[in-house]
């Protein structure tokens, strides 16, 4: 009986007819104008974040190798890949005639960078992997996936190549954590509680610039949550544990 009442207030397709007409227009991909000053201004910060992110990723993988020396070869390979990405993204900025605002980018990453360094000094490998191989990689993958849909043709091609590599990196941290889950779960949860909110803040901080690049905040957040949830699931956490971890992104 109760059901009927609720269904009464349910939205119907009919009540949203205008939206549907709008949505079925021939592919309205709404690419932004890459040549405007406002686009270039926003790009100078977003591009810098990406370049800095790849540099830090490189440094972080090299650092992680000091904690697991027998993985040195694999980690060096990953690090080298990140440098290749950095070069690619630097070229994207150059192609648009944009000078990346590296000072902004360094500040943007400073808190997360600081947390990584502290964990590294303490030898907290789990925390290091959570920050680099899960949070930063998921953040990067989500941003790149959204960017690909609205990028200029040159950047689109480069970003597509990068995304393929990034899935490998996400996989690397994932595999290690999966194997060691029984001993690292507590640290993982703790580190997540501290660092996931930073990711959310970083996302909010670039939301306005991203929207100038036609990257929607809601979509970025959703892409991040998908990559993040996928990884945690692969590691072997159950729905409730993931829900508890993801909670940190909301409060």
């Amino acid at each position, binding site marked *: 009986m109760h059901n009927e009442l*609720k*269904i009464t207030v349910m*939205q119907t397709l*009919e009540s949203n007819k205008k939206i549907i007409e709008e*949505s079925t227009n021939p592919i309205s991909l709404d690419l932004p104008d890459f040549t405007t000053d406002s686009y270039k201004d926003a790009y100078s910060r977003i591009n810098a974040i990406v370049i800095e992110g790849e540099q830090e990723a490189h440094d972080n993988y090299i650092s992680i190798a000091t904690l697991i020396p027998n993985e040195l070869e694999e980690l060096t390979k990953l690090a080298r890949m990140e440098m290749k990405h950095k070069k690619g993204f630097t070229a994207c900025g150059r192609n648009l005639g944009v000078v990346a605002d590296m000072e902004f980018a360094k500040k943007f990453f400073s808190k997360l960078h600081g947390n990584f360094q502290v964990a590294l000094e303490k030898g907290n490998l789990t925390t290091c992997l959570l920050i680099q191989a899960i949070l930063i990689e998921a953040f990067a993958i989500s941003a790149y996936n959204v960017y690909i849909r609205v990028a200029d043709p040159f950047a689109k091609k480069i970003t597509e190549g990068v995304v393929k590599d990034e899935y490998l990196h996400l996989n690397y941290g994932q595999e290690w954590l999966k194997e060691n889950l029984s001993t690292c779960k507590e640290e993982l949860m703790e580190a997540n509680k501290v660092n996931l909110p930073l990711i959310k803040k970083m996302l909010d901080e670039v939301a306005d610039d991203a929207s100038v690049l036609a990257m929607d905040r809601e979509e970025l957040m959703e892409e991040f949550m998908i990559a993040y949830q996928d990884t945690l699931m692969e590691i072997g956490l159950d729905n409730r544990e993931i829900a508890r971890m993801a909670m940190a992104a909301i409060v």
Partner: protein
Amino acid sequence: MFGLIGHSTSFEDAKRKASMLGFDHIADGDLDVWCTAPPQLVENVEVKSATGISIEGSYIDSCFVPEMLSRFKTARRKVLNAMELAQKKGINITALGGFTSIIFENFNLLQHKQIRNTSLEWERFTTGNTHTAWVICKQLEINAPRIGIDLKKATVAVIGATGDIGSAVCRWLINKTGISELLMVARQQEPLALLQKELDGGTVTSLNEALPQADIVVWVASMPKTIEIDTDNLKKPCLMIDGGYPKNLDEKFQGENIHVLKGGIVEFFNDIGWNMMELAEMQNPQREMFACFAEAMILEFEKCHTNFSWGRNNISLEKMEFIGAASLKHGFSAIGLDKQPKVLTV
């Protein structure tokens, strides 16, 4: 493996269910949080057919809620992400339930094949419309005589005749039932004329003209909330089959000798032991489900891994017969008037 992609009927409801299932991170969130929530594989289940075959399946909640219909980009992402999840989980055949297939069709999602690093394989999905259309036709054939309507003398109106389900129902009614007259109502006149030509029968008319003439009305259009209908002008008895989504007909048609039947819902012969259909708010959630969901199960029972119902106006009589026979064989039956909830005074 079969899959079912579903969603809650309202935002409030979705939050309540998420809390029940332990998804606290979204249960506490506002609509914006839900707009960024990934699809969730909520439940795995094993189902045993009346023939003894066992299959496994999963229920995926897309985290879409009808309140998102006004945000088409969000709605589009919810559907595509849920489909991607189904494919990544290796599910052979997944039914698109509730608004999922409606959004897929109306928002033209065929052009979005690439989702991140997954290229969606359409053959893994079915709208379930063939089974829904067959079930609606069976509900009509079985229940009309029960309330004293002789099919051979009956005038049947199909509202939404040019839609995927509507056109299939018209095709079946003309060719398989021997009804006296078919009235076809739809918003767009051009496809309606084409359908009439294809069927070589049926009368094209308007809603207001059709209703007073019809002994049976099959609704397969999304009904405008604002529509007002004078029940005094309806024939008595009159059978109304609510085959649209959401099912909101019974609040509009109340009165003696007006029988509203929830269309496109089937009952399984055995308890399934899942929580999924409580989420979909069925009367008997252990056995009842949308016919579109049942289609994915039937296809899995039959090892028929193909997008059986796909695109618009591809539902042939042969396909309806195939899915109908398989439906009965594996233990499904269409729900009838005796299964109806009592009329509720809103």
